[in-house]
């Protein structure tokens, strides 16, 4: 349970970082407004040629490999909700690194998610 949780935390930090990269890249690519095949292909091609999108995808691939390891050790109904730790990681990073002020409503949300993650973690059963 402890090792699996630690691996999940590493994987979540990777995932958060990969998502920031992908998001920055996609903001450069632009907004998808047209769903005809040609436009979808053009959008996909532009996304694939963007360095930040590619770097984000590479980080997310590493995260995928660690997710496979987690799934080899844990039940899906345990492992998937444990990913909600990402909300905590992002909230703490935003608070510490970006100096975001956390309103009472967000504190309440962070508290509920933390309690939920704790209960889920304690429900561990080695499959």
């Amino acid at each position, binding site marked *: 349970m402890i090792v699996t949780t630690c691996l999940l935390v590493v994987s979540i930090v990777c995932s958060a970082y990969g998502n920031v990269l992908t998001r920055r890249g996609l903001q450069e690519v632009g907004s998808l407004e047209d769903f005809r095949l040609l436009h979808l292909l053009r959008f996909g091609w532009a996304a694939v040629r963007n360095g930040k999108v590619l770097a984000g995808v590479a980080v997310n691939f590493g*995260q995928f490999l660690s997710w*496979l*390891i987690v799934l*080899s050790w844990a039940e*899906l109904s345990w492992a998937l*909700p444990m990913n909600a730790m990402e909300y905590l990681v992002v909230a703490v990073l935003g608070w510490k690194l970006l100096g975001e002020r956390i309103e009472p409503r967000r504190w309440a949300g*962070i508290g*509920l998610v933390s309690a939920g993650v704790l209960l*889920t973690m304690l429900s561990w059963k080695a499959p």
Partner: protein
Amino acid sequence: MRRALGFVLAATICGCAGNLCLRQGMIVVGALPGASPEVLLAFFAAAAVNPWIWLGIAFEIAYSLLWWAVLSWSDISWAVPMNALEYVLAAAAAYALLGEPVGLLRLAGIALICGGVALLGGSWVQAGTGVPRKN
């Protein structure tokens, strides 16, 4: 907004189906027994030839494409908390299809997480800090 909602729901279902396939694949492959390079290599080699894993990857790619489309629209921060739906859906599916014993403790944990995510809302996306995982 209805378009975005449809995309988010489709993404949620794809993500859930993908994770079910991945878990089924890892049941077949077996738990990673150690951390030496040879063990890791054999583990990922077994995963790479498992059809469940590839089916899971296909679903995950569909999930990513759908989410990329959603995230390319600005002003949809309300969609992000919908991600927590996947925890509920996956727990139900894992119980029904994989026979996972989802106890009261775990259900309570998932319920608290969903409540918390609803409260957090999309505020963290507006801050430009991230997008939801996945997995």
